[in-house]
């Protein structure tokens, strides 16, 4: 069995990528299974999806803690421990990185499995004229690394999955082109068997005081510990020279992620700014510009 785990952000299309891979493997005659994990979060938040491909019936379900292949659509997720990109990397046979050159990422994040890379974002920009959902390119990388899926299976799967989405025939053709170029550029991974997980120690859960025995948060204001800024797709940047200190953006920010300094200049709390860009929209003098937050888009 090959276990594949995809990581991206809401909007990157990793759920669609897992479906394209699942469909391609299904068309290739394998037993397959694909599934996403949904949380209570949103566009820009970390998203994980899974696929399993096997010659025999699949007796596993749900999350994959020990993947054979890790497929990463956005390398900024390596900064977010909660995204868990490298969980189980010790036994993975390969990792795919959406980047032109994997070497700096491998060094910086101590990536253990052999890394394969392709700049899916650049290719998507080139063909579609804008950074868009990366599903076709990312699915294609996974399909090639698996080594058991043909180009024809992949193309049919991209067409099939895009037929369920509201996309123009031209966009489907271009996505097929993206998929095929990624497929041609990569080599299959050398897959090794994941060894059986070591036996984990078991816990005995005791009775605890109701203060800890009910889901009550006594530490009010602890939402601050959750850095929702990680969901941001675009970063608002204020030009202090243009800003007239009118304070409108500060009032309109729905997340309370702005404060004013002594001169009335708004400051953004980037740990909690979700990048909705309402501040930029309301600014009468266009002093707030948008900067892409992740290289993947």
């Amino acid at each position, binding site marked *: 069995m090959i276990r594949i785990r995809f990581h991206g952000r809401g909007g990157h299309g990793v759920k669609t990528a897992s479906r394209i891979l699942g469909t391609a493997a299904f068309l290739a005659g394998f037993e397959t299974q694909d599934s996403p994990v949904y949380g209570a979060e949103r566009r820009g938040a970390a998203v994980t999806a899974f696929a399993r491909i096997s010659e025999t019936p699949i007796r*596993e379900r749900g999350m994959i803690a020990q993947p054979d292949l890790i497929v990463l659509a956005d390398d900024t997720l390596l900064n977010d421990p909660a995204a868990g990109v490298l969980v189980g990397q010790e036994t993975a046979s390969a990792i795919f990185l959406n980047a032109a050159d994997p070497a700096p990422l491998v060094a910086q994040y101590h990536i253990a499995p052999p890394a394969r890379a392709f700049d899916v974002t650049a290719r998507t920009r080139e063909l579609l004229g804008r950074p868009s959902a990366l599903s076709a390119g990312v699915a294609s990388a996974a399909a090639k690394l698996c080594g058991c899926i043909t180009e024809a299976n992949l193309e049919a799967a991209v067409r099939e999955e895009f037929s369920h989405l509201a996309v123009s025939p031209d966009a489907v053709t271009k996505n097929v082109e993206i998929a095929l170029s990624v497929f041609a550029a990569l080599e299959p991974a050398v897959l090794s068997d994941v060894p*059986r997980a070591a036996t*984990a*120690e078991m816990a005995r*859960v005791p009775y605890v005081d109701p203060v800890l025995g009910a889901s009550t948060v006594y530490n009010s204001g602890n939402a601050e510990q959750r850095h929702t800024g990680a969901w941001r797709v675009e970063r608002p940047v204020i030009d202090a020279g243009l800003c007239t200190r009118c304070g409108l953006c500060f009032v309109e920010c729905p997340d309370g992620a702005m404060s004013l300094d002594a001169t009335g200049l708004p400051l953004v709390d980037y740990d909690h700014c979700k990048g909705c860009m309402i501040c930029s929209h309301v600014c009468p003098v266009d002093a707030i510009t948008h900067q892409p937050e992740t290289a993947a888009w």
Partner: protein
Amino acid sequence: MSRQLLTGNAAAAWGARLADVDYIPAFPITPQTEIIETLAAWSQAGELPGRFVTFDGEHSMLTAAGAAAAAGARTFTATSSQGLLFGMESLYTISGWRVPLVLVNVSRGLSAPITLGPDHNDVLAARDAGFVQIHAETCQEVLDSILMGYRIAEDRRVSVPVLVNLDGFYLSFTREPVDVPDEAAVREFLPPFDFEHLGFRASRPIAQGVAVLEGATYSHFRYQMHRAIQNAAAVHAEATVEFSRLFGRSYAAIEQYRVEDADTVLVMAGSFAAKGKAAVDQWRADGRRVGLLRLRVVRPFPAAELAAALSGRRAVGVIDQNLSPGVGGIFCQELAAALYSVPDRPPVLRSFVTGLGGKDISQSEFDHVLSVLDAAQSGDPVTDTELLMTAAEWQQVQGRLASARRPVEDNAPLPTDSDDVRAAVRAEFEDARGGVS
């Protein structure tokens, strides 16, 4: 027949579509919503002749489902978790009307705390509601059980609603290959709904669900439901034979996996049984004689089949994905009762609970279960249900608890004496009234 990749939710929608249902009362809830979205899209595209109607909540949705079935409409509806509990009064009501329909529940843990992951406490809260209850392990079984469900529900020996359960996420959002049967073959398996006995016509008014204030007469009606659900065992077995002839797939009330020569047997239900089978495969590869029984039909409880299958085994471990506080795992209790009068019953029976709120079960936890069963002896003192959790998971839980606690330095002393509390509230109240008396 076509083989397609379908989520459990899509498989449920296909079940309703192939059953050619007339009426679909609907209300959304995660993780069920995809079922009614799929049916709504087909309805709008003109591919589903049945009437699709949205409701203001599950209580009215289920009441409408029962009323429609009483009027002779083949009815399908679906819910999950809080929705099932919100509709609980209607569940008992419509089964008491003895109307056939199929209700799909997509399992999700109950509030509080509110959650999204699956366990079986929602569907087992409905175990006494007078529904036949079937738990699916795969997306294929979801579709097939809905078709079988109508055949069982509409049989005059049964004539109660059927509830088909699938696990949220692990089935609802997971795609896997599913054989979608041809409509013609389904027509053969499932003839049109013969509702003559239900009697209701606009031209022939009847009073349904009338008050019965005599205990003896009331007892008669409730006992009839018990007999009806017991009859469903034979009707299910007949339906299985016919289903297997037409579609090549066969479902017993309990699925027996590698139990032939097993001295130790696990008992599980739902999609997590697949993980149990993988554990059995590992142990078998290590030369251990272990098997697994999966409870598929939960009501009627397959007591005789379980007794026959477990008679003569050394040890049985029930892994419940539910928890009855103060008792433990529900299926273990029901199984213990079924085994009581078996002369050669297994000397060791242990209860384990895991998978609550969708918590995964690792091979380590299965290994632990096996080691507990291996060490257990006949005549051991009665043990409590064991909650399966790894030390690493427990450590993570403790981290969450720590972040929810008030930092100690912020703990302003609160009035503890009840007189002080009353005085403080009174002062605040007077303040708010501006001293006007």
